[in-house]
């Protein structure tokens, strides 16, 4: 049996049918216009105000590029700060990419490796772009190769791939009052074996660089093992970095890799209110580390991915 509609319903139906395609198109145009107006209003008025952005963040957060700075020697204090910043970057929904500003001579091996591994973990979720300042030497370069892309200035110092080591003493002072249970209890190892460890650590460093740079690297492992320093222009030629550019370039690259626009930039160190201790800024070394090092290194070998200026003997 045929359904009976009311007159009113019939008129609406007839109106819509009359409008037909034109009506659909009209609605579409209306939607686009509303979208555009919303875009402009959002960009010009809402997003740029604190209130506006905080309101809009409740709906779709404005993407952020986090800046993490490595601008001191790498020891335990630096490591702790870096790990905290990397964790924040990883956990924060608004941070969509990270730019790592590197300006460091390197430092302790295990601290460097910790930072490297955390960056590798972060990189699985968000792009990391390194921007080298005055220099990324030894351990600092080790950290930089963990990133997706590396920028440097034409005269940045890059490289110094190698390891320093402090050997255990040649002769152990014996005591009749303090007695170990084994010959290497205090030294940890013979000097010869310690040197072999150093070679292993060096090979690990080289493999890390080769793995991180992949096909982009145009230098042999033997050449790398010379531990030479290269300026940015040379480093680009040898594939140690990806491009010459500034931190702004690194930010744009990070944004492009993350697929974001109209982002904001956040200094994570400031955000977390972390402050580099004054002693790190002046000497680049943590006195606590120094104290620990001076006692610790007396008994076990310690390794450093660090640039050390040569001593002048003449």
């Amino acid at each position, binding site marked *: 049996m045929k359904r009976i509609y009311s007159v009113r319903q019939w008129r609406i139906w007839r109106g819509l049918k009359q409008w037909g395609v034109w009506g659909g198109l009209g609605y579409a145009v209306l939607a686009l216009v509303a979208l555009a107006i919303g875009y402009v209003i959002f960009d010009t008025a809402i997003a740029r105000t604190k209130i506006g952005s905080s309101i809009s963040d409740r*709906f779709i957060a404005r993407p952020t590029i986090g800046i993490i700075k490595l601008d001191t020697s790498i020891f335990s204090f630096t490591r702790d700060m870096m790990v905290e910043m990397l964790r924040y970057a990883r956990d924060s929904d608004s941070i969509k990419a990270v730019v790592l500003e590197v300006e460091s001579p390197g430092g302790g091996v295990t601290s460097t490796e910790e930072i490297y591994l955390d960056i590798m973990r972060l990189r699985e979720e968000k792009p990391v772009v390194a921007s080298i300042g005055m220099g990324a030497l030894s351990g600092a370069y080790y950290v930089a190769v963990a990133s997706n892309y590396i920028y440097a200035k034409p005269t940045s110092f890059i490289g110094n791939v190698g390891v320093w080591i402090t050997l255990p003493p040649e002769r152990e002072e014996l005591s009749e009052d303090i007695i170990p249970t084994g010959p290497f209890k205090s030294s940890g190892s013979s000097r*010869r074996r310690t040197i072999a460890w150093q070679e292993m650590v060096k090979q690990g460093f080289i*493999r890390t660089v080769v793995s991180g740079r992949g096909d982009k690297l145009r230098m042999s492992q033997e050449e790398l093992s010379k531990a030479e320093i290269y300026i940015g222009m040379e480093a680009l030629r040898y594939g140690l970095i990806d491009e010459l550019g500034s931190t702004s370039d690194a930010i744009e690259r990070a944004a492009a890799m993350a697929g974001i626009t109209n982002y904001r930039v956040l200094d994570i160190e400031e955000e977390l209110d972390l402050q580099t201790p004054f002693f790190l800024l002046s000497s680049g070394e943590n006195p606590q580390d120094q104290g620990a090092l001076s006692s610790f290194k007396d008994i076990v070998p310690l390794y450093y991915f660090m640039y050390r200026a040569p001593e002048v003997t003449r």
Partner: protein
Amino acid sequence: MRKLIFLLVVVLLFLAAQTIFFYQGRYQAPPTAPPRLDDIYVTPPPSGEYSERYRRETGTVVIDRSHSNSFSIEELNVPLMRIMSRGFAVEYLGGNEEAAGNPEEPPRFVGPEEKAPGLEDRLRYADTLVIILPQWAFTEEEVETVKEFVGKGGKLLLVADPTRHHHINSIAAEFGLIFEDDYLYNLKENDGNFRNIYVNQFREGGIAQNLTRIALYSAGSISSPGGGIAFTDTNTLSSRITARGGLSPLALSEDGRVLAIFDLTFMAEPYNNVLDNNQLISNLADWLTESQRSFTLPDFPYFLKERPRIAYADAQMLDSGLRLKNSLLEQGKSPELEEHEETPADGTEDLIFIGLFKDAEKVAEVLERGGISITVTEEEEEKEAKEEETGEEIEKPEAAAPNGEEEAMAEDGEETPPEAIAEDEEEEKEPPVSIKIEGLGEVFQEEGTSILYLSRGKDAYTLLILADSEKTMETTLKQLESGAFRSWLVNQELAIYHAPKSKEPVRPVRRPAAR
């Protein structure tokens, strides 16, 4: 209802605008994986077998420690044991025992500008001198002493290490060897570090015999005119020299008596056990203990073997013979004393002949070898013959009194002072003994003259001590014992001694040794 839908649409449009505004793509994480590190390992090189066959000899190795040498004796344990097992004695020359290996500790005995005490004396009997990492340069005098030692066949071992400060070129350069200011390294193949290089190219024989491959730990290169013993390959580079390959951390001087090694570490535990290092150390011990040393007169008494024979010309010389025997006993020799019967023709045993000039004919053959002829006048011969017969000293004829005092003494019947008689006799008589030396001519002979002449035989030495009187012989033996005779050297085989006339003590004048 329519208003609700409219509001919803507006909100959705707003959110869509936001999304498009901020997000225009997605991050595609590249496959990431940390590099694999669990298969990295460093295998230490194997130990090589080595031969410890040797012949026991006697001799002495002197190790210099008088130039603030920066090494410790413990570092030489391995080579020292090998040297001593070959029968050689090891002595240390000078320096502060506690300061050995500690360059900051000032030694007690010498300063950098002073000659090491005892260097010349030690080198009179040493077969080998070892100089390791001297921090002070050798003085000109010391260099000359060492050169003279090497010239006599003595062996010299020079060792340095790039990791320690040294002035070894102050002595090495004199023998055509230069320790370069570099270190050798190999980035492709090494023993756990780029500075621990392998060397597998050697000159045949000698120090390098039975060597296939050695490992050196922070070694440097030595420049020498064709004296390299071990050579690096093309992958081993120098920190300073641009040449690839053919660099020598071990080298020998042209005469083969000076060996230079530019690494100390390989000799010490545990590095001596790597590859053929032990074989190299054994070869080194063999080289150090194969003495080619010859001796000259200044080296008395060290050219004598353990049991030299002392032959006195006749009973008159017995006391002198006994004196000399006792002196040699104190020096550790076991001499035999007997009256001379016959001089061995071929010089197979060490012989010391003591006699007066009149006895020269008994050893004429030996003197002839040195171009020495000694002629005693007839009068002197008669006098001495009578003295022998009677056992009394024949008085010399009275001389004219030169002054009143002596005349008065003569009238009183008292003995005329021998000095006056001697002076007068000298004025009137010709010398009783004529000594002629080939190449020098006739030696002015006066009372109180003696000669020392050393002749080298096949395996032994003959030393002639001839004097004009017993008194002169006594004085000569004193000069011999004290070493003062070295002031009277004419050449390396001959010394002529003139006793001073005054009663003041003799102060020998130092003269450069004739070569």
